[in-house]
């Protein structure tokens, strides 16, 4: 099938951190995503784009086994984080989630203070070092420190939506992950807050690998190095099975897509 196109490997020294091999995802009997094979490169930003319901989030959430939380979800095929097969029975999803962090569509700070939001993850993971320093460095990395340094003990709910989302990014950084999965991280934010999140993503890719689901094609073209275009299987359109249509460097996907469907979607003819 045409769906499994790997990005053209230009430089051999680009390390692969996440990958799937013929991975299919099911909710009860329904196939949500079929037969995806792709490699995600370390310290790059990879975006998943495509129409609603094509399984972008399902694929994203398989990389830290968040799909386990949905009753009836199951997987066939392989999903790898580095050299670990994530769905092998010996893998503890709790450990995986410390290494593969996640930021959600809607900011979801805990109903605790700003400080406690950051400190929660390190505490449950038995962090031994200096918590104050860790909180500060995470807030710095998330470009939030200057705005909140005088009110660390205030409720996180007092922050604006964009600040809350940056707090959630800082919170995810506090458990020292390698990868950040972002599920439409800016879709609930205004344009200015969105730009700040995008700037932040660019800063973060020095240290982290970022995989981002987005509905916003401008965003994908602005921030990502690689883009995966997903869509509905055209042969079995009634079943709404998500497939990977094309995966390549972002610049190629947006300027010279190989697939007609990608081109139609990029140019706004459907989706």
């Amino acid at each position: 099938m045409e769906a499994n196109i790997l990005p053209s490997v230009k430089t051999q020294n680009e390390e692969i951190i996440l990958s799937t091999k013929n991975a299919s995802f099911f909710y009860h009997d329904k196939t949500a995503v079929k037969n995806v094979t792709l490699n995600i490169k370390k310290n790059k930003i990879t975006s998943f784009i495509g129409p609603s319901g094509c399984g972008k989030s399902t694929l994203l959430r398989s990389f830290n086994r968040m799909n386990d939380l949905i009753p009836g979800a199951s997987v066939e095929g392989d999903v790898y984080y580095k050299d670990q097969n994530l769905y092998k029975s010996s893998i503890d999803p709790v450990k995986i989630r410390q290494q593969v962090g996640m930021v959600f569509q809607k900011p979801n700070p805990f109903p605790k203070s700003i400080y406690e939001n950051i400190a929660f993850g390190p505490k449950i993971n038995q962090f031994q070092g200096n918590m104050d320093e860790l909180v500060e460095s995470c807030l710095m990395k998330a470009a939030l420190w200057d705005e909140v340094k005088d009110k660390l003990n205030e409720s996180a709910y007092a922050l604006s939506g964009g600040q809350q989302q940056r707090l959630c990014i800082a919170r995810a950084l506090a458990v020292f992950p390698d990868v950040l999965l972002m599920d439409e991280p800016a879709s609930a934010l205004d344009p200015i807050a969105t730009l700040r999140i995008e700037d932040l993503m660019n800063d973060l890719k020095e240290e982290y690998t970022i995989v981002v689901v987005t509905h916003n094609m401008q965003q994908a073209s602005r921030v990502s190095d690689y883009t995966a275009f997903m869509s509905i299987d055209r042969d079995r359109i009634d079943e709404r099975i998500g497939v990977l249509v094309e995966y390549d460097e972002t610049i190629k996907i947006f300027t010279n897509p190989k697939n007609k469907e990608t081109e139609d979607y990029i140019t706004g003819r459907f989706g």
Partner: protein
Amino acid sequence: MNMVSNKKRIKNLLSFFHSTGMNDFNEKVMKVLLFGCGVFSILITVGIIISLFSEAIAFFARPEVNLFTFFTGTTWRPLSSNIVPENFGVRPLIRGTLMIAIMSGAIAIPLGLGSAIYLSEYASDRVRNIIKPLLEILAGIPTVVYGYFALSFITPLLKTVLEENLGIDVNFFNALSASIVVGVMIIPMVASISEDAMRAVPRSLREGAYALGATKFEVSTKIVVPAALSGIIAAFILGISRAIGETMAVSIAAGSTPRMTMNPLDSVQTMTSFIVQVSFGDAPSGSINGQSIFAVGATLFAMTFIMNIISQTFIKRFREAYD
């Protein structure tokens, strides 16, 4: 043919009701009727409060008693022939009531919270759909059955375990046995309200914690329970206030000996069981005995009323949390 005429008849009937004049009239009648329903229950409540407090005031107006010794005295002997203020100290009853409320709370709060955590965080939908109705059946058992259960099962059990094996005296009527059944009785209430509060915690908070590498237990105890805390505390307070007001099981199992004791294996009398005791006797209305139950009742009412107000404030705070 018949169908058609039926339809026509219904249509006529409908248009009759829908004709503006009739509609207006119906609306007015319904409004008055529903208003009446509302006013009726309010009037009854007001009536109860008035009769409770007017008799209580009449009691305190008597020269044989006084308000101060009522709340400070440690002897409750209202049926004695020696009618002096010293025999009307309500503290033994309050202590008996609080003792049973605290001990039953000590049983119901951990068990109720535990089952709420299980139902809300661990149980599959299928299991929850079986267990929750069962829990609610537990809440529907008449309290006199619990009292009988205490006397015929719990007390003998306590006697076997404590008295025969450990040599600790166990009164046949004792506060512990009553507390155990009252505790069991209020578990469903504590569990159900706590579970509602925990289920109202948005899924996104749980996901946020899971995504940081939290285990299910950490998500439950460090995110869900704190986030639902005001609702859970409200459940605790309502449970305790139910235990304070509980009558039948306590009268049967704890006996009727007003006593300033700290020993849970002694017989005690609670405020409610005193009221039952006098009501079943032949204290004439207007007599000091008859009026004393109103004084006790008013005190009890004030206690549970304050607790319910506290729990309402907690529930309100909890509702505001995620808006």
